[in-house]
């Protein structure tokens, strides 16, 4: 039962995000990076399958700059066996599609039964890579997965996915791509021997050239979307409580405010 987990490194949820003065991008100096929390559910699920079936390899595939090695090591410390790091400036500046394409190109040559992605990354919240990856690999996928049950013969998987107002149960043939949603599991805390062992585990560096993709199909050149402008959300102003003697008076005041100040009606 070989699993691949696609992992993205993202700024910590509490990190201070500032926008570059020219509005072209965000500043990531002095920011603490973590494994995208949804990807972490994927790592945990892959480790659980390994524990259940034994004789399995869990491989981390990560696209991102050099700093990502720290997050890769964290996943290896949790128990993943090895990793592939797509680290090349030529891959920078892309979008979800170039990422998915590059990951697909890398994964094509690997042995796997199941691929886990997070349902989305918490930095750009695009929620595209997992699904696009499945399309590029031409295998089925299920997203927002909160329960995974692989059959004993390792031929198919039954998943519960979150939908509005309930859960949907799907059966997919393997191999397939699953994107993990919160609630799938509780990721483990790496043990100290795990951390020490992770330092010695194999992390294979992969360059853009190794992927045999046209320069026009990777990085900024291959991106289907382009960031026009980055800006911080306007600071939230304090809420206003509409005072009045009677409900009617309050309603009248509210209507006036909505029309004249908020220009909503």
């Amino acid at each position, binding site marked *: 039962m070989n699993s691949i987990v696609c992992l993205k490194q993202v700024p*910590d949820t*509490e*990190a*201070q995000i500032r926008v570059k003065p020219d509005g072209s991008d965000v500043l990531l100096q*002095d920011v*603490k990076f*973590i494994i995208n929390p949804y990807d972490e559910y994927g790592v945990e699920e892959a480790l659980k399958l390994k524990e259940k079936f034994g004789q399995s390899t869990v491989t981390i595939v990560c696209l991102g700059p050099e700093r990502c090695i720290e997050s890769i090591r964290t996943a290896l410390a949790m128990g993943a066996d090895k990793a592939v790091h797509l680290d090349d400036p030529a891959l920078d500046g892309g979008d979800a599609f170039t990422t998915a394409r590059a990951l697909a190109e890398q994964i094509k040559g690997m042995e796997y039964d199941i691929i886990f992605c997070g349902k989305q990354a918490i930095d750009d919240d695009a929620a595209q890579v997992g699904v696009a990856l499945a399309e590029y690999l031409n295998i089925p996928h299920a997203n927002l997965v909160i329960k995974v049950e692989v059959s004993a013969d390792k031929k198919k998987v039954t998943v519960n996915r979150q939908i509005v107002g309930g859960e949907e149960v799907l059966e997919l043939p393997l191999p397939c791509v699953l994107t993990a949603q919160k609630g799938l599991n*509780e990721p*483990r*805390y*790496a*043990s*100290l*021997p795990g*951390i*020490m062992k992770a330092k010695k585990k194999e992390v294979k560096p992969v360059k853009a050239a190794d992927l045999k993709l046209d320069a026009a199909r990777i990085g900024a050149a291959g991106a289907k979307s382009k960031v026009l402008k980055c800006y911080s959300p306007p600071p939230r102003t304090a809420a206003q409580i509409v005072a009045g003697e009677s409900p009617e008076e309050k309603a009248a005041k509210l209507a006036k405010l909505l029309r004249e100040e908020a220009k909503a009606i």
Partner: protein
Amino acid sequence: MLTTLDPLWVLIALTIFTVGMYRRYRLWMRGQKEERIEGIGQRLMDFFVYAIGHRRILKELYPGLMHLFIFCACAIPILVIAAVQVTFSTPHLFGNFFSLFLDSVGSLGLLGLCLAAYRRYILKPDRLSDTRAEDAIALVWVFAIILLGFCVEGLRLSITGETGVWAPAGYVFSALFSGARPETQVGIHKVLWRIHLFLVIGLIACTPYTKFLHVITSAINICLRKYGPPGVLRQIKDFETAETFGVSRLDELTRTQLFHLDACTRCGRCQDNCPAHLTEKPLSPKKLIQDLKAHMDEKGRVPGENGQQTEKALIGDVIEHDTIWSCTMCLNCHSQCPVFITTVDKTIEMRRNLVLMESNFPVEVQAVFKNMENNSNPWGIGRHLRGDWAKELGVKTATEGASADILLYAGCAGAFDDRYKKVSTAVVKILQKAGINFTILGAEEGCCGDSARRIGNEYLYDSLVQYNLGIFRQYGVKKILTICPHCYNALKNEYPQYGTTFEVVHHTEFFLELIKQGKISLNGSGAKMNVCYHDSCFLGRYNELYDQPRKLLTSIRGVSLVEMDRTLDRSFCCGAGGGRMWMEEHLGKRINEARTEQALEKKPDAIATACPYCLTMFEDGLKSKNVYDTVKAMDIAEYILNAMKE
């Protein structure tokens, strides 16, 4: 009166004794090697003060005197007999007075034994609930030896017709036999004397196998105690090379730690003061030690015929997980143990094993670890916001290039906890009024790591320390003023394991000094107020700062102190130490509510603390007792600032 066979009996007894002691020795030596013990002079001194002198034993009057009486009745006659062997004559120096003295010692010994029996079998305090048959046998045994001693003396008086003035107890006993004919008396004398002798020889022989062992082990244990600040945890230095961390097997404890197990006499003073035990948690320090001892005994036994010895796991089977997580590391058991047995050193090693090796800890702790890793505070608030508490206060940060004599270390609570930010603000205002030149680290400050360390995550603690040391070095920090006692203890007593030399002071120490120097003066409204001060464990037992906070409070006009029953070195923990601040309290009664009740018993107008955890725990306790609006809990810094304003 000795027969030719007697030396043989003594020899047999000594052989049994030696074999027994050797068996115990082999059990202790299964532990890990340690550094050599230094300071023989001081240790000898400890032997006289704490073993012979009963200093800690006498902290509790009834059991203390009871033990002293029994101790004297056993030790002094043995010394006399030893002296007689050397000088070949009874000491004539004090003659009759000596006889009177020995009589008194023996009588007090009988009294002590009666007191002990009365206490154990009639009063039945909770801490003696694990009474065993050997306890009764031991009492009767020693009682019989002393009683027979008196009978023999009485008979001697009766036979020789000596006056009983110098041996009043013996004289009383002589009355028992005065009716008998002289020849009969001589016969009885001979028989009783021999029984007396055999009881003594027997006692020697069975010492290593019974509770009498404590006579040897407890005394030695006193001499083996650790010096320096109490409760400092062992540093792990070999993260890179070690294969296991913490303790999951008995033989991973050190030899001294195993020796501790044999030094425990089950007196139970520890559990009488343990906040976990007193609120119905599964932890009792005495039970912890005794369970470990039983495990050691079991492992020491030769496997039976079938060779199948069921191998119990130390963690889980012998010591339950909940027991390990219940400890608040308040150090009360350490302070109360008459013979310096420690438990926190064992609990922390088991926690380390669970955390570092097994990643097995209360679920809510994982977020705390991650928060400390990513944002250097247990709440996980963005670390770039760490300096925001002081933004409006006009405090210079070291980052801005300000240099000062003193670094004010806000700590996570002082920087992030809304309630405690008021305290750190008060501290700043007091320092500013006193004209002290100080800086803060602002967003560059990191968590001190105390909670991570005491939960057992030494690896995380180490990384937090490394970061802080880098910052301290960068700004050439020489003196640190802390607000939180946990930061205080970590920086002052535990960071030196990394070779630090900076000076660390707590705000209560520092403010008292400012008052003495006349840099701040307290007026106060003069309104009469009864304030109940709660000792933080990490200020009190860990650092012996008992007087400073009290003196500060009583410097305020109108303030008088009311003390709780459990105060000073017997102070009851608020429940948040040892990382318990970050764990749910599922078992038993809530510790903070128990402590709040103890304070409210004294009907105080207000409560004073000097620790962010204690303050949180008290405020929660006051809320749950529905007195939050009438009884205020404040940090001492807030009292001081209020008294400076008026």
